[in-house]
């Protein structure tokens, strides 16, 4: 694997499968009396969150702690970031403190990329969500969750439904699922599709009822009201019309094949893109996604941090030890 994880598109098929296989082993750790491995002892992971997050930050924190890394949480609120410190100065500070990995969430698309490709910090950078761009560990945990239920994802069909325009989850999922050989159909109102969607490895539909009977999994996206307000736009006439056409309710869920899963990256707007009874249904794996998030992030941190830095690694070391 690369030194950083910035985009789900950077992962080769072999990389992605290595993360998923490693996550499978990490997952069994949660059944043990001591849920901890000594692997990253003495390494420091900084969670640098410029944007609010519950699930992702806690998930990364638990993952790093289970690998025995030291964790520093750095939230924008309550730090010098709220006094206007730049990304660069923050990064230099972290570098001075010896961060081996920086897990960064930022409201600006591309911020993790900037952090990784400058001389400000020498550690690994993990993108934990940047603006409307990407959220690769979410895509990995979604793929991990689907793989546990459906087997290999090659040839499987996944519908991603809702606010694709503002969704970093949708982009990362489209890229990763494409790499893994799955077929992806985006279902969304035309106003919530990003420009350039023709270049994505996906099909597009505006008709949810027609797509549902054909898929192995349906992933509902959160309607991101906060980003819609920021761009001062009206993307659909009313919430009620949106949920009528693109929300998942019990009637729509019954159109799915029996084995099909329902996913949601959270946080959910119950009653908007998904009804409460669907969210709590047996085929909904939304809670499982959260616990799989820890295993997946452990796998990512393990693979990025446990070995030698790529530049210092000898070409070939062999022999049993």
């Amino acid at each position, binding site marked *: *694997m690369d030194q950083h994880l910035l985009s789900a598109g950077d992962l080769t098929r072999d990389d992605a499968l290595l993360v998923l296989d490693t996550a499978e082993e990490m997952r069994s750790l949660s059944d*043990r009396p001591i849920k901890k491995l000594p692997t990253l002892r003495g390494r420091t992971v900084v969670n640098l969150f410029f944007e609010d997050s519950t699930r992702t930050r806690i998930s990364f924190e638990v993952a790093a702690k289970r690998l025995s890394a030291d964790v520093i949480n750095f939230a924008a609120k309550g730090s010098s970031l709220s006094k206007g410190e730049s990304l660069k100065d923050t990064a230099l500070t972290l570098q001075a403190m010896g961060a081996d990995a920086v897990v960064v969430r930022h409201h600006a698309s591309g911020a993790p990329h900037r952090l990784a490709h400058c001389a400000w910090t020498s550690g690994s950078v993990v993108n934990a969500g940047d603006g409307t761009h990407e959220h690769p560990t979410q895509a990995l945990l979604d793929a991990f969750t689907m793989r546990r239920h459906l087997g290999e994802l090659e040839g499987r069909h996944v519908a991603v439904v809702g606010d694709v325009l503002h969704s970093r989850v949708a982009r990362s999922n489209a890229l990763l699922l494409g790499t893994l050989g799955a077929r992806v159909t985006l279902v969304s109102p035309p106003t919530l599709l990003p420009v350039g969607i023709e270049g994505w490895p996906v099909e597009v539909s505006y008709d949810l009822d027609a797509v549902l009977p054909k898929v192995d999994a349906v992933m509902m996206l959160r309607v991101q009201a906060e980003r819609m307000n920021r761009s001062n736009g009206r993307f659909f006439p009313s919430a009620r019309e949106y949920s009528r056409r693109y929300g998942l309710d019990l009637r729509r869920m019954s159109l799915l094949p029996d084995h099909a899963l329902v996913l949601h990256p959270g946080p959910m707007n119950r009653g908007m893109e998904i009804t409460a009874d669907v969210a709590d249904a047996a085929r909904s794996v939304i809670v499982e996604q959260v616990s799989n998030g820890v295993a997946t992030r452990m796998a990512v941190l393990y693979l990025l*941090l*446990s070995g030698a830095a790529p530049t210092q690694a000898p070409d070939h070391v*062999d*022999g*049993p030890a």
Partner: protein
Amino acid sequence: MPGVMQPAGSRVVLDDRDIARALTRISHEILERNRGAGDLLVLGIPRRGHPLARRLAARIADVEGSEVPVGSLDVTPYRDDLRLRPARALEHTDIPTTGVDGKTVVLVDDVLFSGRTIRAALDALNDLGRPRVVRLAVLVDRGHRELPIRADFVGKNLPTSPIEDVRVHLREVDGRDEVLIAGSAVARAVEG
């Protein structure tokens, strides 16, 4: 071994029948030492320790007439050389539901060399529980220990030079049973 091409410069030190005899002997030694199969748990260290553990457990079960729990224990996250090479893929860990507490755990590996793998395995076991006793069974002991660790049951003591390579091939992983010894340069060129 007739009919099988050996890499140039390597020689077979144990063939399939030698391996079978060694495993049968070790299984009897384990039973003798433990006075039966009570509370036994056989844990193989991936990759090649695991098939060896399964074979030992099967032989013990044949003699005693009752199933012996067997599992695998990946020591990768506990290794002391993780930072010396690129990140490694994890192997599978599978601990029987009975757990390790109070058991007589027999660790099984193919080659005992520096002892560092076993050191890692003891740490891994420690995180899983508290066995009553831990013993070590290996197919080949090639010497050159770097830690104060020794095996309780040994298939074959093989005096080697540190630069030689000892390769264990097993049916389940490599398609045939044999132990090879080679000058490390030769073995490496062949493995590519």
